[in-house]
């Protein structure tokens, strides 16, 4: 029945002059639990269902979407998409192309051990409240927060090329935050990551493995101690970044910079462009020999892991930076064809009402061989920074400034006193060129970035970054307002 409706939409599109069309039907079920200071602050459950039809007419795109999923509405939206595409042709330079046809019939499910929707709300709430209480035992904590989130996307993709793909992607995460207030200051610590949560593809086991309760006292005490900690000094020094901060560094200064739509100017009106150019491929030195970065939509548990992207292209694993040299871009069918390439399977849409655009998958820094202990021992002087607090980068992804929740002085090969309000700044290729050590696989894991904004209307992507701690030389730190 539903499959007939999708086929009807594609027939209408073809009949209306579309050389290509696809329909995506997406259901997103969500559940969030947020506790704050000993009580449940927010408890919500969402069920979002709709469809989007994308058509290519005379080399121009049109897209229409609706939350009203029935045959009549699908046909109306398809005709609107055709009208929109014809309007697009009025301001066109060269026809859009999407490369060779792709015909795939398949299905994919995120492997899960514990269905996050099957675990009782009571169990989730009690786990969060226990961590919340443990944080508030530390006197200076003014706000203790804990959160859980799960999303299940059930989606069908069908195209005029003959593809028909079903997927169920399950994403789950959680985290805690302690806000210390006192001495005219406010300081925050988060675990396992900032942005309120660490997230991956998988089930409730992801949260169970975090041990939120076990880590709650530590982060609360650290937040309290930060109130009276000395300010991070200003100057140029060696910086060691923990894996979570490095994940965001990688996200902002590499992941976005290698999105081919940005490189081609598609995002110039909003998110910006890139300092990289198409002709830099294979010849641009992005970082030091120690820097190798892989785009991997197949890594188990990564927040950017799936079977097929939202153009029906299979998930892939391929090099972005190889020993410091630019080796690849993140691409969609249309952008890849501009370079005469096949898509890298990185076109993703934030639900039924958005078109697929080039997004990160899991953009991972390959681990090195050094243990974290040896890295610190090998550092005479520097600052070890943990957990992102603020981030900002220019529209070509060159000049960045990051702040971290907490930092530690490194002196004589040992971690020393705690520092607050740590910041560092730099220029992307110079910064990655100064990377001289990446820690080994035992320190490496995939961190979720659940809040990546891009596109108009804005789309939020959930992407991943595999990282281990790494060291950077001659970095400017302690930028204060």
């Amino acid at each position, binding site marked *: 029945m539903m499959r007939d409706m999708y086929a009807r939409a594609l027939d209408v599109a073809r009949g209306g002059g579309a050389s290509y069309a696809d329909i995506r039907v997406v259901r997103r079920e969500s559940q969030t639990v947020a506790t704050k200071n000993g009580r449940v602050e927010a408890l*919500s459950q969402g069920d979002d269902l709709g469809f989007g039809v994308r058509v290519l007419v005379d080399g121009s795109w049109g897209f229409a979407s609706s939350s009203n999923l029935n045959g009549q509405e699908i046909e109306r939206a398809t005709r609107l998409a055709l009208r929109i595409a014809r309007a697009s042709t009025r301001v066109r330079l060269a026809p859009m192309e999407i490369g060779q046809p792709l015909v795939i019939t398949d299905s994919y499910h995120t492997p899960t051990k514990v269905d996050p929707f099957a675990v009782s709300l009571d169990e989730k709430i009690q786990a969060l409240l226990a961590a919340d209480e443990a944080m508030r035992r530390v006197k200076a904590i003014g706000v203790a927060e804990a959160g859980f989130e799960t999303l299940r996307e059930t989606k069908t993709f069908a195209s005029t090329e003959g593809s028909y793909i079903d997927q169920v992607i399950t994403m789950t995460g959680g985290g805690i935050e302690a806000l210390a207030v006192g001495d005219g200051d406010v300081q925050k610590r988060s675990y396992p990551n900032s942005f309120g949560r660490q997230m991956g593809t998988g089930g409730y086991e992801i949260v169970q493995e975090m041990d939120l309760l076990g880590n709650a006292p530590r982060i609360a005490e650290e937040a309290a101690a930060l109130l009276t900690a000395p300010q991070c000094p200003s100057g140029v020094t060696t910086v060691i970044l923990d894996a979570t901060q490095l994940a965001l560094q990688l996200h902002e200064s590499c992941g976005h910079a290698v999105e081919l739509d940005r490189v081609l100017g598609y995002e110039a009106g909003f998110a910006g462009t890139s300092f990289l150019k198409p002709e830099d491929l294979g010849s641009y030195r992005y970082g030091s020999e120690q820097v190798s970065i892989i785009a991997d939509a197949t890594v188990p548990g990564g927040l950017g892991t799936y079977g097929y992207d939202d153009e029906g292209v299979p998930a892939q694993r391929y090099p972005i930076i190889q020993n410091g040299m630019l080796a690849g871009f993140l691409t969609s069918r249309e952008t890849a064809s501009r370079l005469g390439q096949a898509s890298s399977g990185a076109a993703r849409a934030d639900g039924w009402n958005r078109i697929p655009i080039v997004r990160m998958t899991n953009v991972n820094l390959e681990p090195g061989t050094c243990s974290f202990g040896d890295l610190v021992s090998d550092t005479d002087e520097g600052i070890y920074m943990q957990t992102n607090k603020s981030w900002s980068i220019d529209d070509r992804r060159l000049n960045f400034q990051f702040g971290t929740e907490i930092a530690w002085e490194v002196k004589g090969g040992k971690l020393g006193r705690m520092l607050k309000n740590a910041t560092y700044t730099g220029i992307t290729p110079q910064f990655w060129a100064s990377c001289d050590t990446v820690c080994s696989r035992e320190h490496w894991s995939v961190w979720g970035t659940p809040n990546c904004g891009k596109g108009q209307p804005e789309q939020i992507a959930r992407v991943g970054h595999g990282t281990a701690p790494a060291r950077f030389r001659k970095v400017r730190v302690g930028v204060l307002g």
Partner: protein
Amino acid sequence: MLGQEHSLATLQQALALSTADQTEVLLLAQDSGLTRFANNAIHQNVAETNAELRVRTVLGKRVGVASTHDVSSGGIARVVETAREITRFQAENGDFKSLPPPEPIATVAAYFECTAQWGPEGRARWAAAVCRLAAEAGLSAAGAFQTGRYEVAVANSLGVSAYYASALAELNATVMSESSSGYAEFVSMDANSVDAEALGREAIERALRGRQPADLAPGEYPVVLESYAVGDMLDNLAYLGFSALALQEGRSFMRLGERIMGGNISIWDDALDRTGVPMPFDYEGVPKRHLDIIEDGMAQGVAYDSYTAGRDGKQSTGHALPAPNSWGPYPMNQFLEPGEATREQMIASVDRGLLVTRFWYTRPVEPLRAVITGMTRDGTFLIERGEVTRPVKNLRFTESYLDAMSRVEMLSRATRLGYNGYAATRVPAIKVSSFRFTGVTEH
């Protein structure tokens, strides 16, 4: 478009199904289109028809929320049941008093049918105008033009029943040369008032003037901030500090009754002012009230929703966001009082400083001092001896917006309406005697 009658009937249908002590139903609907262009051609062109129903139920002191995009009878019944189930699992919240009671709601006549009906052909005409002008100037244009109609309806079991339809046209354009970029935006409820060519010319003029930017060392400079940059300042200040919840939790810089900005700074929120983007009630159905936030530099008031008002024993100011919302109430219609200066007078008053078009990627570094870092973008120029002399490469700043608002020497008489997708600001351009730039980029 759902329309008032159908929307309110949907809400009543949901309320009738609820057995909770109190129930609130919020309906958000839109029918919108957005045309994007880049490299002087339309490359993305989309439309969305969407409706979402959010049900908040109250059982004693327990509150829970469920939402759905299925507004059929079956979907409504399911979401009401889900909300009730969720609420049962909630812990009691002693601070929760009640959903708000009904109050008279003002009428705001700001709906333009032409905007609601504006189609992809009309947006393509706008895009064509900008792209043609850019191409004629040897430049490359990018941007997004959005038109749409939006409906908000809210009802609760205490008798609140409110409906509002609006329509908005939002345009922004970025025009680039090999070495520069220029920006312009325009927001209006009346699509017929859009002058796409004027928008394009504003961005083109900046792009042309910005070519071959020079290096400028970071440091403290007097600045003239165009209204685009000033709008960002109000957005960040509201996000960090203008909410009652932020104040209650000790994370706001607002010290009520104390001077925290210069004596020439007054900021208020007024959702009934038709020179903004009006809305007569908030997402709980409470009428929007005029809110003085900063008056002559003094911290005067913060935005309340019914929950935070209940905690402080006050009346909601009508600034609730849709539930569930852990960030608290938010002023969505801010105004910064203009001054008497012209933009030219402000520039003429600077011996050596900068003219900044807009800020980009601004993020808080120290929230309690409102220290923000960000970049300049799309037109940064050196002012020497009272004249704009040459473009400079974009700079990073790390500056307390509170301190900057204490150093405002001049404000323009002219104001501009800005809209960031969920909140509006109407602000003048300003001259700040000193602004701290901490880095520079390569373009």
